[in-house]
């Protein structure tokens, strides 16, 4: 089973990288771009086919290590 995890900076927390990329896009003429947020994308291969178990384990991984919940949100998808 494959898990895809997305870690993003919380909405109310400043994302300087996103702001820099937004500025760069504007200077290239892509003025339609509003806010840009940059996050992390992780692919995890799991040796289980039990969706409920995988969900609980991935949640624990996110809470413990993959995201710092003081400043980051996470979400994930499971397939296979």
């Amino acid at each position, binding site marked *: 089973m494959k898990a895809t995890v997305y870690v993003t*900076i919380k909405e109310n*927390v*400043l994302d*300087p*990288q996103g702001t*820099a990329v937004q500025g760069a896009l504007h200077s290239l003429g892509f003025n339609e771009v509003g806010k840009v947020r940059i996050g*992390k994308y992780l692919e995890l291969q799991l040796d289980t086919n039990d969706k409920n178990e995988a969900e609980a384990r991935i949640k624990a991984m996110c809470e413990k*290590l*993959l995201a*710092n919940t*003081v*400043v980051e949100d996470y979400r994930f998808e499971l397939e296979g």
Partner: protein
Amino acid sequence: MKFAVIVFPGSNCDIDCYKAVEEAIGQEVDYVWHTATDLSAYDAILVPGGFSYGDYLRCGAIARFAPVMAEVVKAAEQGKYVLGICNGFQILTEAGLLPGALLRNSGLKFLCHQAPLEVVNNETAFTNQYAKGEIVNIPIAHGEGNYFCDEETLAKLEANNQIVFRYAQGSNPNGSLSDIAGICNERGNVVGMMPHPERAINQLLGSEGGKRMFTSILNAWREQHGAAVNS
């Protein structure tokens, strides 16, 4: 008095910390590897700056699970002195020994220069040799030193006098919330700060503003263990 300097793969201010203890207060000091499982021999633990475990994922996120960290938590609970500097501060927040988190500098640049700091709390074991409100120069060297916590936590930090250092008025280099440069836990025995006092112990280094952090801790330890102790 005996100091431990924790060494993670990727620590790079460990030698500076070791030398600072030697030069500033001439006390015993050991390097302690991240796999160590016993810190009972030490009175103070220094968690140095650098890029522990390459800072992969997030600064301090992986170091926080190193075997030695369970011992650092235990030492903190026992009331021993724990000082996290720069990456060490990031590790202590990840470990939950200090509240909040360190974000990327608001100006995106890695910053490396002297920073004027205001001593906000001079009642900790690390700051008792400073005057409250005094301005000291201690260098910063970080890309992710932008302190952040939620409003409730900030109110608690202020109410409990847990803000130890602030960047002097008008000099906030990284966007830190409320100009915070260093904080302590409620008990005051765990301090984390982004500036590097170990790099400011001799005028030859541009400042000796950090030296009194080391004399403070020796002073605190001696008071705790009886003034007659000479070692």
